[in-house]
């Protein structure tokens, strides 16, 4: 129970990741798959952001710029957050591409249910 609470950020990200993975693999509707993919990516963003956190630390903006040495324990690690800015851009781009392709699929087959699309392909 101790480790469950102490490492709750990891549990949350694992849970979210599984939800996303489940939706991507098990859902029949293409938009639901895309949403699953987005949840999956968000889980990883949460993971990264949480590893930058420190107990009792504040946002990484220097409070006393005249200080000679920066005491790193006072600030959260900004690097994972910066990395995630890039990852968010990537995930938005992926989401956009995936949705636009889902739109084309809908124009082509008139449905977003994977089984119905496959039936139509088999029928051809």
């Amino acid at each position, binding site marked *: 129970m101790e480790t469950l609470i102490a490492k709750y950020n990891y549990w949350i990200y694992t849970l979210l990741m599984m939800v996303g993975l489940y939706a*991507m693999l098990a859902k029949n509707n293409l938009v639901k798959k895309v949403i699953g993919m987005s949840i*999956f990516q968000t889980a*990883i963003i949460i993971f990264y952001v949480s590893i930058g956190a420190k107990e009792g630390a504040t946002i990484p903006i220097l409070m006393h710029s005249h200080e000679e040495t920066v005491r790193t324990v006072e600030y959260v690690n900004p690097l994972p957050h910066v*990395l995630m800015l*890039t990852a968010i851009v990537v995930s938005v781009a*992926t989401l956009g591409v*995936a949705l636009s392709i889902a739109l*084309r*699929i809908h124009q082509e087959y008139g449905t977003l249910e994977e089984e119905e699309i496959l039936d139509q392909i088999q029928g051809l």
Partner: protein
Amino acid sequence: MNDQLPALIIVLPLVSALLVNIAGRVGRSYCWLFTVLVMTAVTGCALGLVSRVMTQGIIHYRLGGWPAPVGIEYVVDHLNVLMLVLISAVSLVAAIYSGPAVQREIPEQTTSFYTLFILLVAGLLGMTITGDAFNLYVLVEISALTGYGLIALGQGRAFLASFNYIIMGTVGACFYLLGVGHLYIKTGSLNMKDLYQLLPSLYSSETIAVAFILILAGVWAKMAFFPLHTWLPNAYTYAPTATSALVAPLMTKVSVYVMIRIIFSVFSPEFAFHISAVRHLVVWMAVVGIVTGSVMALLQTDFKKMLTYLIIAEVGYMVGGVWLANRAGITGAVLHVINDALMTLSLFLVAGVVTYRTGGHQVRNLQGFYRIMPWTMAAFTLAALSMIGVPPTVGFFSKWYLMLGAIHGAQWHFVAALVFSSLMNALLFFRIMEMAFFDAPDPAQAWVGPEAPVSMMAPVLGTAVGLLAVGLNSRVIVDRFIQFVIPAGL
């Protein structure tokens, strides 16, 4: 100027991807010319890097002048300089070839096609040259996103194929990113060289083992290693001709390169290969992948789809070769990355000519082709012999090293898989040759005239000659480049 080559080779295509839109505004036909010129310049940069690496050794390029662990670093060594030349040369050939194919299949999307084309090349070159684990993720996604778009430019089933590729590709990239996150937790670094120095003291840690597994799983999904291959056949089959000529030879091969880079330059062979049970498991997976790919290829009636299953079998060759974990096996795997890219390029170029001439890419479209398209079929025959592994074509040499590696490591099932796959390839290609030679051509196709435009035929014949030229120079590639890649002690 010469010092800036590592940056130029990426910046040039990145900027050109924007500029090609201006060319497209002026006139659609300029896009092709512009892309060919850019790819020529990129190939020039790659060749310039080869001469620099051969004279000065490994190049470390600091982006923005920031030193290594803090800033992003581009590293050019003997392994990735080969990859840079391969990628730029294959893209140049594919760019020349794309002209008539784009005009016929996707004239409305010419500008978008070439924008994505150039961006994809930038992404692949970046994946190869970068020395930073997170930067690699971004470049993987650049090449993947452009790849999804390029595939979705096809018709009909291309959309669904591209969609499935997005799902699988994103899962792969996310696993990679997660693995890098685990490495970062433990080491606080993202620079590959830095990681390589920091990691050995942490090898006993479970987090590092998890990171290694996550990264490998991610890269395997990207390269369509069995059993994560299901997205590949449809995506590559239904893509437009010009797309598959670029994507099919390069995407999986660059992912194999990334795997080799991760094992040798981030982790070490001692760590990656130290559990023999894992090593054997991966070789077994490669064996199953090779056998499945070959058998599935034999069952196809669609020519392009048949080639896609062959790619899956060839990925098994390369991954298996690396995990044989001995000198000959790894030499074979690296050599096969180059050779397989050339063979796949050659076969997809031929498939593109068939599509251009007959409007389809079924195997039966090739009926009587030796009579109506002798030059194309000459190139096809050479590529087929190379896939089977007949000397002096490229396919023979890498298979030879892989075979030596497997025998040396006493992995007899891998030897058997290589032999089986060669036999299946022989069966498959001789069956097509027989039909193309003896069956009467479809009367509708039997018009006289040139086989295809010069800009398509020149790449087809050039690549076929390349299969022989590179094959005869295998020794040079191994002696001057690949032998420096393999870590001491293997």
